[in-house]
Every structure is written in C-alpha cells, then in structure tokens.
C-alpha cells in the first residue's frame, strides 16, 4: 500500500542524506536538528536497529540505525556519521545516517510512486522516489519508521 501522491504545485524542501551508497530524504519541516555522532546507551530487549538512547539536552532520545532499519548491513558509525533528529508523530527520534548531502526544493509532482519492490517492508517506509540530476532519492515516510508502541510493549 503506497500513500497517495498529492500533486499540488506547492514547493516543499527536503533534506537529503546518504545511507551506504543510497540517497534518501525527509521533509525539512520534520527535522529538528542534525548532530554529530556520540555513543549511545544500549537498550535491552530492543530490535537491532535501535542503537540505543542518548541525552539530547535533557531528553532521552532513541537513535535508530537507518541502514539497519532498511535491511542493509549495520556499519559502525565513524566520526563523520551524523544523526538527524526528526519529529515523527509526538515522538522525537534520531536517525543515524552516513552524511547529510543536500537541501532539495521540489514540487510534489516530481515525486514518483515507489516501484514494486521485492521487499514490502522497504516499500512501506518509502513515500516516493524523486529524480533530480540523474540521482535517485527516496523520501522516507517517518510515521512508519518507529515500531508501534503497543506492538512492542510486551
């Protein structure tokens, strides 16, 4: 099930970033800040893509390894790794990515529907695909990224 692509002429800005050798982006309005990597406190009983939690000015912020979440192999973060703090619903989470690359300004008609992929899971995380200057950038659907609270609160 892909989300409806709304074709309005309104321009949106997106922040694009690299995960492995792929490019993804999120709506800039959801981004709160971008920070350099700092070691996280491991959370027990949690899915492997949860790197743990860090202290973000007094709030406990969970860090999600985006590569791992998208089913790619987990890579140890380097000094150049960053996490993007985004607001998804009423929660704030940090997405660990390799590097932030660009700010894109697009209209929604540039967004193409996600093609049928083998992996339904990945498809459900991707809102659509944007093609700019021969690059393929996938837009992340933030509300699908975090596990449902009820589902895991065993």
């Amino acid at each position, binding site marked *: 099930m892909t989300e409806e692509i709304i074709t309005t002429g309104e321009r949106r800005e997106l922040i694009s970033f690299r995960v492995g050798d792929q490019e993804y982006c999120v709506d800039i309005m959801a981004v709160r800040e971008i920070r350099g990597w700092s*070691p996280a406190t491991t959370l*027990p009983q949690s899915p492997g893509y949860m790197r743990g939690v860090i*202290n973000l000015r007094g709030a406990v912020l969970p860090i999600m390894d985006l590569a*791992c979440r998208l089913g790619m192999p987990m890579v140890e973060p380097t000094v150049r790794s960053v996490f993007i703090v985004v607001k998804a619903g009423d*929660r704030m989470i940090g997405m660990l990515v390799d590097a932030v690359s660009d700010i894109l300004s697009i209209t929604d008609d540039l967004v193409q529907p996600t093609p049928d992929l083998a992996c339904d899971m990945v498809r459900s995380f991707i809102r659509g695909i944007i093609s700019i200057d021969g690059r393929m950038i996938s837009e992340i659907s933030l509300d699908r990224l*975090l596990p449902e*609270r009820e589902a895991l609160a065993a």
Partner: protein
Amino acid sequence: MDELEAIKVTFFQECEELLADLEGGLLAMQDGNDDGDTVNAVFRAVHSIKGGAGAFGLEPLVRFAHVFETLLDAVRSNEVPATPDLVVTLLRASDVLADHVSSARGLGDVDEAVSASMAAELKACTDPNAAPAPAAAPVVVEAAAAPVIEAAPALIGADDALDDDDLGFDFQPMTITIDEQAADVAAAAGNVWTVSIRPKSDLYRKANETALLLRELARLGPIQATLDASALPPLEFLDAEAAYATWTVRLETDEDENAIREVFEFVDGDCDLEITRGEAVAPDAALAALLAGDAPAPAPAPVVEAFEPAPVVVEAAPEPAPAPVAAAPVVAASAPVAAPTPAAAAKTQQIEVPGPGQSVIRVDPERIDRLIDLVGELVINQAMLAQRVGEYGIAPSSNLAMGLDELEQLTREIQDSVMAIRAQPVKSVFQRMPRLVREVASMTGKQARLVMDGENTEVDKTVIERLADPITHMLRNAIDHGLESPEERKAAGKNPEGVVRLAALHRSGRIVIEVQDDGKGINRERVHSIAVKKGLISPELQLTDEEIDNLIFLPGFSTADKISDVSGRGVGMDVVKRSVQALGGRISITSRPGQGSTFSLSLPLTLAVLDGMVVDVAGETLVVPLAAIVESLRPKPEEVRPLGPVGAVLAVRDSFVPLIDVGLTLGYRDSSPPPTEGVVLLVEGEDGSRAALVADAIHGQRQVVIKSLEQNYQQVDGVAAATILGDGRVALILDVDAVISLRRREPPRPVEPTLIAAE
C-alpha cells in the same frame, strides 16, 4: 462558540475550587466555627456557582443551587440557626451540588430522586413552618419580579420554566409573603425599609458606584437617601482613595429583603450593609448627613469631588429617584452628631483590609515541567563542568574552583525552588475524602467522622496524583472493616460515632500518610484462620501479632464476611500495597484490639528524582532503585550453589535466593561470569519475592533525575526509566520486578535484530 467553551472550562475549574471552599466552610461550621465570615464564604461559593451556571443556561444546576442558596441566605441572616444537624444536611446538599456540577460538565449523572428530595429538604429547612404543607411554600423570590442586577441573566429565563420542571421542585414564582410577615412585625411601618450603606474603599476600587446602587434601589420603590459625611476628615487628613460616606436610604417597596439585597449583589463584602424593616431608629439624628446638592458639607467636599467618586454619587442619586428626594430635611445638625462618629469610623477604617490580598498565578503545568527539565539539565551540566575542571588539576582555592562551588550551590538552590513550585499541599486529595467518608458511612450504616490533619503538607505533583487511590481504599477499609456499627460501639462503651483520622506529615525526606480508626482493631484469630483456610500460610506457622496484621496485604486475602458494596470490589489491600510499592513507597499497619488500627503509608516526596545505586553491568551503567535493595554483598564461593543446568542460588542466612545475572537477563552478554567475581544486590520485589542481582561493580549511591523512555520511544522490558549521569550519558534505571520475572521466562529471550514493519 469555542470562546464560550473556553469560558465554560474556566467556569468548571472555578466550580471545583468553589465546591472545595464550600465543603471546607461547611466543615469549619461543623467544628463550631460558624462566624459570619465562614457562613458568608459558604454562601458566596454557592452563589457564584449559581451565577456562572445561569450564564451558561445549566438549568438543573441553577435550580438546585438556588434552593441551596436560599437556605444559606437564611442561615446567613440568622433566620435559620446553624445547628449541627443543619450543617450535616448542608454537607449532603453540597455533595448533590457537586453531582450537579459534574453532570453539567458531562461527567456522570445526577440521581434525580436524591436531588429532588434534597431540594425538598433544603426548602423545609429554609422555612420550617412551610414544611408540613409543601404547597404553601418556599420563600423564593421570583428573580424576574425585581428588575435587579442578577449575575446570571439566564436565570430569569430559567425561573419561567420552573413550574413544569421534571425535578419535582415546586418552586412556583410567587411574590413573597411579605405581607404576612409584615403583619407580624406590626403594620405600623408598612412597607418601609431602611437601608444603610457604608461603602469601603474597595467598592470604588472595583469600579462600582454608589449612584448606581441608589438608582437600582429607586427601581424598587420611592427612596429617600441621606448622606452621612460626618466621618469625612479635614482636608489635610483626607485620603483621596478612601471612602468616608455613609448613606441611609428610606425605601418604600413591596419587595422583600432579598430583593433589596440583590441590588447589592455586586458589592457584596465591599460595603457594610444593614437592611432593617421600618423607619430608621433615629431618623433625626441620621439626618446629620445631608443630601448631596445642599450638603452644607464641610469645606473639603467640593475638593474631594475632583478626586473621588463618592461625592459625585450624591449628585447622581436624585436623578433616577426624582420624587422623594426633596423630602430630606436640610438640617444643619451635623455638628452635634458628628462628634461621636469620627472615632468609630476611624476604627473601622483601620480594620478594613485593603486591596488585592493574596494573588495566585495559574500556570500551565507543562511550563513547570519544562522548567524542571531544564534545571535537571543545568544540574547535569554543572556536574560535567566540575568534572572537567577537576581533570585539569586546578587548585581548589583558585578563583575558578571557588566560582564553581558557588555555581553548584546556586544550582542546588534553583533545583530545590523549582521543585517547590511543583509541590502542592495534599489538600487537593484530602478534600475529596469527607464526601467519601459520608457516603461509605451511610452505605454501611455506620457513623463516622473524619478528622484531617496536615492538609498543607506539600508533596510533588507527580506523587499527589497517585495518592488518591490508596487513601480512598484505606479509608473505605477503615470504615467498612475497622469501625463497628453504632450498636456495637455503644455496647463497647464507645461513642457511637467512630472517628477516622487522616493525617499527612513529612518524615525523614518522605511523606507519611496515616489512616487511623478507633474501631475494633484487627481480629487476629480470624485473620490467621482465613489465611490458613485460603492456603496462604501453613497452619503450624507461629506468627507474631505484627506478622498476622500484615497478612491482610497478601494477595487473595479478604476478611470481609460478606462482599460489601464498599470494599469488597475485588480489590484487596494487596493491590494497594502493590501500587504503593510501585511508587517506591511502603505501607504498614499497626493494630490494637478494641482500640483501632492505623495504616501508615510512606512515599518519596517526588517521582521526579530517585535514590539509586549506580552499578556496572557488562560495560553498561545501570541504576538500581534504592528502595528495592535490601543489602549488597560480595558472595563467598561456598554461598553460591548451582541449581539445575544453568541456574544458581545464593545462601543468605539459611534461605536460598535465586541469583540473577543482570547482564544476561537484559541481553548485554551471552554468558555470565562467576557470581563470586561480581557484587550481589539482594533485592525485594513488589510481591515480596527476593532475588540476588549480580552486577560487576558498584559505583555508589546517587540521587538521579528520572527521565521517561516512553516519551520518545516506548516501554522497554526490564527498564523502569532512564536518567542522565554526570558524564552526560544516559543510564537506564532497572525495573527490579521486571528483571525478576524476565528471568523466570527461561531461557532469556535472544536479542536479535527484528524487523517490524508497521503493516
């Protein structure tokens, strides 16, 4: 519309406070404190609720409040004596009023029958003579009859609908039975009233106007106003902001006293008001004061006019009441009469409490929470800074180090003050209890009086919200199980009315709540036999009295012979104990046969910080709540005994406690090192089960600020919450119970990357 809704929300908030005031006032009256102020406060509370409700067209509430108010008004004017029985009735009426408020709010319904009978009872109290023949009825003035300022315009409309209302209030708008009453008084005075008005300076400060009051009075009938300016000091002593004038108004009207009083509704408390039937006692003397225009008032008068509204009023008065004014004889009698009065006037002037008084700020709790978060951050930051400076080896006597010390002290003080902002008196919980006691007592057919103590004891908001349930439960228990029936009490030589005492106090950094009854105490034999019968303890076990008393906290224990509506709701004391322990608290009971029992509940003052033991487990730093730790020890090899293929137990003074490796249970490591290399924390779970948690090292004890994991993530098994340590990193706070139960689920759940798609 939204705006109206917002105002309505405010109204209901105020109702909460007013209902609390009402109940507080009534309780004070019950304790024999029935001075005018208390009665007035009670009256005002009901009156304000009625006024607001009228504005929103909440008719059932208005109707009930009106009946209630009428009675209170009678009490206020001493027409009905405030007997203890009456106060009890009033208290019950306040409960019904609270129900009406909740119902108007859309929470719950009013028991119409109860409400109607309560209303009838109130009416009967208001006018005892009318009671036997309800048709002959209530002393209720039809608001519409007097074109009077009424706080609630809608009320007038409401009254029209009264005849056929479904509540069974027969309050037909009838113009009052003044004539009959007047007949008693002696027809001499006819329908003449004397109203004496002495405004306080507050009246003017609140932008009220005596002229308007006089004009309203004039609508009731012809008036004759005389001004007594004798209290007016010479110009050099004149306080331009103060009020000195007194009016005496002779009013001819067919309305009754209530109608006259309603004129002064808006200035209630801001002026001394005397309404008497008949002519003023010494009209001639009163004439010392003269009507406005012609007042041969001392020289200052015209000057004052420029500053103060009071004298202006005098001029305004005649306009609306053209006719009788001229009748006021212009007598220059001021001199002789004036002499005695100034002293008296000066005296009252001093007593008058000026102005704004105590002001309270309403603040969105979220803002305070944010402030507390920030201060927590400040504390952490300060600790980090101190640590860094220490690393650079700066001398403790240097300016930098001393400045840091000061910073630390300041930070602490800020933290304390901020926490104090959020601290609230337990009153907000306590004040719900009198009603509960009344209801439970009437349900169980017992007589109970609640005595409360230490209502102003302060505790953090996070704790207060969770006090209500345990207290409710303990009180129910105390009345239902603790107190005997009135007959039994009489037989035992006690006052048939049982006393339940609810007290709050601070003790060694915790809040202690005590619920004490003077009932029969715990029947230990029966408790013991029930525990044996239910298989909770073995029959041979010899228990001390104290141990038997505490059996009631065991899960599955209920001593009630019959399941009563009150405490036999399937929730036993074990639930109370568990919920208290979940807050890091303890509950205990002491009991003396024939003299009663005392439950005592001790809780931390805040749930925002916690005392914890900082430990190392597999390279991770964890915090174990201190409340759960019984002792910590380094196990000797002979104390560790293997049990089964992987398990082991620890021998602690003749008992065996299961050893739990925290690192393994939480999935930090795959195999546990020998327990003898680590440290063991002997912990007690909420259900009383013990376990020995194995950690690698202990760092020490620390007070930590609790941070929620759920806010941005979700609950994690085995972890209660998180905190931030001095190095700025997040440390997890261990959920001891969850760790124990996790361990029971053998084998430990493997931690593997699970991919959960939202679909």
